[in-house]
């Protein structure tokens, strides 16, 4: 590859250094590096990258602005489409979206769009570039948003920008949804999230924490006080395996493991009150982003960390960067490996995981090969901690108590594809609560579309 076909490398902290703490791994581009990377853009006529982005950011425009050193302008371009670029720049699966279709990818490395997006947002934050957002003429209509994850936040920002009176109701004591309780700080620092959320404050969005709709406040009450409602409660309920030994001590759902460590800061125990058990060898079941986050967190808690996955690494649904970072840091990938049972000691602590080997069959309908368990390959391996990261589903607390809102069998909220309205008049929904566990950017795309629908509905 000739130099311009290669990406400008993003400086990163060394694996040896970073496994000892929870600080961020990639350091991000300097202004010079960002300009150089942006200048690699071919400015092709078709701009397929825009179509590759679920929120259709005008990528060529902001990349050009970076190339020209117009960082403030680049920020304005981004914010037109995306109110939290510092976040998406860090967690989007760019290699499956904008960067996958980048024309530059035909001759060399695609443009590093993700890191450029992150650069603009970080540069703006560090240099106080941001201006108070403009708000359209104030309107009287009030909208309630349920859930403060990326979907709810995006919808709230767009509505507030358009002058609506917006209040967010969030179940936990802090806003951000999965961004806060799930994704660890070494990937997405909390101060970055907090800064991006300040934007909502500036827009006049009201935040009410500790409001669990369906538990301590009813949907009906929200309806009485608001003209429309957007439900973005996510898919926050852990799935369990349903096999023997799952209730042993030392066995965690990924949600519990990550919430203890991230939201409640158990890695700083006893300075922070919430504990997590000591761990020497951790087996993480699954291979998506959630599993990578758990496995890398386990390393940072001082443990030996294993991914136990039924397929091979190439089929992992996680972002490429996460798998790469996990490997660099020393997470071991035990692939073609299917856990079947947890075994414990007499005090009820996990001691061993019973595993079977697998073989991959021809790809099925979803394009992924299905694993077949090979009988007679049963063996056990010692583990003192297991983390179950096989997926999440919508939390029933909302939908079982939301009169008029129909859901699918697995709990996904049913919406009209065009209007995004649920089966209850004036109540809209999107994000993981509708799609099941997906991605930050798709949840945000839903939030934007819903905001548009809500504005039409209120007109």
């Amino acid at each position, binding site marked *: 590859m000739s130099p311009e076909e290669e990406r400008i490398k993003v400086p990163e902290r060394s694996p040896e250094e970073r496994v000892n703490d929870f600080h961020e791994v990639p350091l991000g581009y300097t202004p010079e590096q960002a300009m150089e990377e942006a200048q690699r853009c071919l400015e092709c006529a078709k701009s397929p990258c825009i179509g590759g982005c679920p929120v259709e950011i005008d990528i060529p425009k902001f990349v050009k602005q970076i190339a020209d050193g117009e960082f403030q302008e680049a920020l304005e371009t981004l914010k037109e489409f995306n109110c939290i670029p510092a976040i998406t720049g860090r967690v989007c699966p760019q290699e499956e979206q904008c960067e996958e279709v980048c024309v530059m990818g035909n001759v060399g490395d695609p443009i590093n769009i993700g890191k450029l997006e992150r650069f603009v947002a970080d540069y703006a934050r560090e240099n106080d570039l941001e201006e108070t957002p403009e708000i359209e003429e104030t309107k009287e209509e009030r909208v309630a948003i349920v859930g403060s994850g990326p979907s709810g936040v995006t919808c709230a920002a767009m509505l507030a920008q358009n002058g609506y009176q917006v209040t967010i109701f969030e*179940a*936990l*004591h802090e806003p951000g949804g999965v961004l806060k*309780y799930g994704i660890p700080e070494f990937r997405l620092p909390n101060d970055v999230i907090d800064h991006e959320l300040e934007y909502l404050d500036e827009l006049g969005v009201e935040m009410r*924490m*500790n409001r*669990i709709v369906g*538990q*301590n*406040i009813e949907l009906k009450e929200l309806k009485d006080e608001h003209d429309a409602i957007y439900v973005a409660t996510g898919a*926050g*309920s*852990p799935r*369990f395996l*349903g096999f023997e030994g*799952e*209730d042993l*001590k*030392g066995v965690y*759902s990924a*949600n*519990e493991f990550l*919430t*203890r460590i991230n939201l*409640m*800061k158990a890695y700083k*125990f*006893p*300075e*922070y*009150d*919430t*504990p*997590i*058990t*000591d761990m020497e060898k951790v087996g993480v079941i699954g291979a998506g982003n959630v599993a990578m986050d758990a496995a890398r967190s386990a390393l940072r808690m001082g443990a030996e960390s294993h991914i136990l996955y039924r397929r091979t690494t190439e089929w992992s649904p996680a972002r490429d960067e996460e798998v790469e970072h996990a490997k660099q840091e020393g997470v071991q990938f035990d692939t073609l490996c299917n856990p079947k049972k947890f075994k414990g000691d007499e*005090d*009820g602590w996990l001691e061993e995981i019973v595993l079977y080997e697998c073989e991959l069959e021809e790809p099925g309908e979803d394009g992924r090969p299905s694993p077949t368990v090979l009988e007679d390959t049963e063996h056990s391996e010692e583990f003192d901690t297991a983390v179950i990261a096989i997926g999440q589903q919508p*939390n*029933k*607390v909302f939908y079982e108590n939301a009169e008029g809102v129909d859901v699918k069998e697995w709990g996904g909220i049913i919406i009209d594809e065009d209007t995004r309205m649920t089966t209850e008049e004036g109540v809209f929904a999107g994000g993981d609560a509708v799609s099941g566990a997906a991605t930050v950017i798709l949840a945000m795309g839903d939030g934007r579309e819903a905001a548009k629908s809500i504005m039409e509905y209120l007109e």
Partner: protein
Amino acid sequence: MHKITEKERMNEEMTRIEVEAPLVAKKIKPGQFIVIRMHEKGERIPLTLYKKDEEEGTIQMIFQKVGKSTHELDTYEEGDEILDVVGPMGTAAEIKDYGTVVCIGGGVGTPEVFPLAKALKEAGNEVIVVSGFRTKDLVICEPEIEQDACVDELHITTDDGSYGREGFTSHVLEELIESDKEIDLVHAVGPPIMMKVIADITEPHDIPTRVSLNSIMLDATGMCGSCRVEVGGDMKLACVDGPEFDAHEVNFEELMQRITMFEEKEEEALERWKEEHGGCCQ
């Protein structure tokens, strides 16, 4: 922020606090609980409701000093503020006219029995309360249960016989059953071992029995699965499916093991805290 409007050390181990929480006071029902977080570094602590005053917008809880957090909470005084008070959590107890109900409270489970017994009495039941403590100095809520809740009978037991009946709450229950008393429902709140013993006693007599579980909780919104417990062969979450369950369906062995998961860590935190606080608050 939620201001503490009253604080009373009831004995060496137990403290009553009243806090401002108008939204909770308006909605909370017997059987439900709340979650508090004292400060930014605090953990989310589930506590059960003792009393509420809707007009004043206050709720009362009685807690026992066990770990670091409850020891710390005990240092909070009137006028101090608690960062988060969230609730009501969990499902409410079904209150109706069953006939005769025996409510059993063990130790710090007794304050939870108070609103239950009161509501059951108001619903027309004959209510018998059995309340057990280790020793005389730890007996709480006696006048409240007797006079405020106006229950029909109150039996107090102490393990060492220093007050009331010597023995356990289960002994009184056994006697009631032996005396051919018609019992339509038993509701027990207390240490898991007590609840298990009660469940074992009532099962052969087909007496419907409910227990309120004290599993380990984190968010208490159904998000983490920390409080999972086997009930009737299915996995249930004590925070949102409970905390009340059919006692005869609960896998108590599993519950008793799971609640010790963080014991070592709790001891570590408490020791460190006591060192830092010079042992002044023991």
